[in-house]
C-alpha cells in the first residue's frame, strides 16, 4: 500500500528578482515496509523535498503545484492544525545534526514524553520511552531519561532522535541526511541501527542522502535528483548495476568505494549544478554531460518501464 505519494510537486523559493525552483515536477511514492532513498549532490532539492513532505518548508519557500498524499489524504490542503497533528504521529523526521536537534534546557526524558504529550496527553509514556530507547541501543535507558542533551555523544543523540521519531509509530519516517554530521564509526553504527529497525518497523522510510553507501545498505528503491528533478528512479540493484541516466552513472563512478586502488585521483563531475533561478531549456544536466548533443536542449522525454524512470534523450529506460 502506498502510504506517501508525491505527485507533480514543484516548490520554489522567492528570491530578489525571481524564483528559485528547488523542486520541479517530482512524482514519487513509497509503500509501507519500503525504504526509498533520495540521492543527489548538494543543492539539488533533496532537503526541500523532504521538508515539503512533512509540511515544514522554510520561510520563503512555497509549493507552486502538485499534491502530497499521506494515506490518501492531500496534506497540503489540510488546515494547519490537522497538518500539525499528522506530524509526529503519521509522519516523523530525523534531522541531520543531532547536536542541535534537542532543546538544551530540557532533559531527554522530558522532551521525549513531550512528543507523546503533543498528541495524547493521557498516555502514560515512561515505559514506552524506555522500551524505545532500548530498541535503538541506548545503554541504561532509565538513566538516559534524566540526562541533558549535552551529556550525550553525537551518536547517542542521533539514536535518541531516531527513538523520538519512532515513538508514535509513524507510517512514514523521513531521515534527512541522518549520518552526515557523524564521524565514520558513528555513521556505520547508525546505518546498522536503521537496518535493524527496518525489521520491526511496518512503516515506510524515506532516506535523503548523498552517501552512496547509505543507499546501498538500506534502500529498496532510489530516486536520483538533479537540479530539482528526479532524473532516474529504480530499484537499488538496478541502479547500482545498470545506471541509465548519465548523471547516475557519473555519481556512481565518483564513489570512493568503487575507485580502483592506485588510480591516483578520485573522479569528479566537472562543472556545477546550474543556477536554479535561471535553468537552461531542456536537460539541466546537459552542460556537464559527456553524452550531450544538440537534442538535449529540447524538452526531456520520460522513459518509464518496468519500475524504472529515466529522464534523458540519450538513454532508453
Amino acid at each position, binding site marked *: 500500500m502506498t502510504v506517501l505519494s508525491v505527485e507533480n510537486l514543484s516548490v520554489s523559493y522567492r528570491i530578489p528578482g525571481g524564483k528559485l525552483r528547488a523542486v520541479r515536477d517530482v512524482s514519487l511514492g513509497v509503500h509501507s515496509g519500503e525504504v526509498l532513498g533520495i540521492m543527489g549532490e548538494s543543492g539539488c532539492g533533496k532537503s526541500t523535498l523532504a521538508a515539503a513532505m512533512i509540511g515544514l518548508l522554510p520561510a520563503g519557500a512555497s509549493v507552486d503545484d502538485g499534491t502530497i498524499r499521506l494515506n490518501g489524504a492531500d496534506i497540503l490542503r489540510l488546515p494547519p492544525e490537522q497538518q500539525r*497533528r499528522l506530524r509526529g504521529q503519521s509522519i516523523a523526521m530525523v*534531522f541531520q545534526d543531532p547536536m542541535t536537534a534537542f532543546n*538544551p*534546557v530540557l532533559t531527554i526524558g522530558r522532551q521525549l514524553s513531550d512528543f507523546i504529550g*503533543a498528541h495524547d496527553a493521557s498516555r502514560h509514556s515512561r515505559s514506552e520511552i524506555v522500551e524505545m530507547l532500548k530498541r535503538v541501543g541506548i545503554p541504561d535507558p532509565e538513566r538516559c531519561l534524566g540526562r541533558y542533551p549535552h551529556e550525550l555523544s553525537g551518536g547517542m543523540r542521533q539514536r535518541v532522535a531516531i527513538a523520538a521519531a519512532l515513538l508514535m509509530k509513524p507510517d512514514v519516517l523521513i531521515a534527512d541526511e541522518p549520518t552526515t554530521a557523524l564521524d565514520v564509526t558513528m555513521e556505520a553504527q547508525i546505518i546498522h541501527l536503521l537496518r535493524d529497525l527496518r525489521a520491526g518497523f511496518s512503516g515506510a522510510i524515506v532516506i535523503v542522502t548523498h552517501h552512496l553507501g547509505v543507499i546501498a545498505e538500506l534502500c529498496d528503491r532510489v530516486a536520483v535528483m538533479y537540479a530539482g528533478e528526479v532524473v532516474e528512479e529504480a530499484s537499488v540493484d538496478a541502479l547500482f548495476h545498470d545506471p541509465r541516466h548519465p548523471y547516475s552513472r557519473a555519481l556512481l563512478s565518483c564513489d570512493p568505494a568503487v575507485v580502483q586502488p592506485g588510480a591516483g585521483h578520485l573522479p569528479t563531475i566537472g562543472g556545477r549544478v546550474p543556477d536554479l533561478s535561471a535553468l537552461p531549456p531542456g536537460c539541466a544536466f546537459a552542460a556537464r554531460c559527456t553524452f550531450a548533443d544538440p537534442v538535449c536542449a529540447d524538452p526531456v522525454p520520460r522513459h518509464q518501464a518496468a519500475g524504472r524512470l529515466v529522464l534523458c534523450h540519450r538513454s532508453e529506460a
Partner: protein
Amino acid sequence: MSSVADASPAARRSIGRALLSDPMGLAGLALVTAFLLMALFAPWIAPYDPIALDVRAKFQPPSAAHWAGTDHLGRDLLSRIIWGARLALGISITSVGIAGAIGLVLGLIAGYGPRWLDSILVLIFDSMSSLPMIFFALAVITVLGPGTTTLILVIVLVSFPAYARLIRTQTLTLAGADYILAEKAMGAGTGRIIFRHLLPNVVGPLVILICMDIPVVIMLEAGLSYLNLGVKPPSPSWGNILSEGYNALRQAPYVVVVAGIPLVLATLGFTFLGEGLRDVLDPRGAGRRWG
C-alpha cells in the same frame, strides 16, 4: 552551548554557586538582600514612627536616641529611611515586574507571531522608546496628577519597550533553532513551543536587564519625588527626604547625606547583582565563567 540561560535545576544550582564565588555578585546580593529585609520588616526595625512629628526635637544631629538625626519636623530620619526602602523597592519592583511581564508577552508575540503583527509591535516599541523619559513622565503626571499609581504607570510605560525588544530579538534567534524545527516535525503546537521551549530560553537575559533597571527606577522615583511629582509627602520617600533636606542644607547638612547613602547603596547593590548575574548567565559576557 548557544542559549543564553539554562533553566535546568542542576544549572540553577551552579548559577547560585558562581554568583556567590564572584565578589561583585556577592556584594550585590548582600546589599539587595539587606534592602529587601529592611523593606519587608520596616514596621519592626524602625525605632520610631516615620511620620510622627516632634517639633521640639527638630534638626537634631545623629545621636544615641536618633542614630541618623531628625529632620525639620523632628521626625526620626533612620525610621524614615527604613520606611523609604519599602516605598522605593515596592514601587520599583512592582513597576519593573509589570513592565517585564508585558515586555515578555509582547516580545514573544512579536518574535514568534505573524510578520504584520511584529511590524506593528515594533513600531509601538520604537515610538515609545523614542520619547524622552523625563518629559514623558512629566506629561503623564500633569494629566493624571502625582502619586504612587501614576509613578508606577509611568515607569511601566517607559520601560516595557526595552524588555519587549530584548525578548523579541532572543525569540527570533531561537525560533530558527534546529530543535524548534525538530519539535514542529514531531507535531508540537505553537503554545507548547512558546511555553516549553522559547520561554525558558529567553527569561535569563530579561532577569539581568530588570535587575540593572531597578536602580534606574529607584533614581527616577527619588528624582520625581524630589521635584514633588512623585510620592506625596509626608510619605517617607528617599526623594522627599532629600528634597526636605536640601531646603535645610545650611542648618542641617547631615539630612541630605543620610538620605543619599541608601540611594547610593541600593543603586550599587542592584547594579552589582545585575553585573554578577550577567557574568554568570550570559556566555558571551567578558567575565565568562560558565556556559
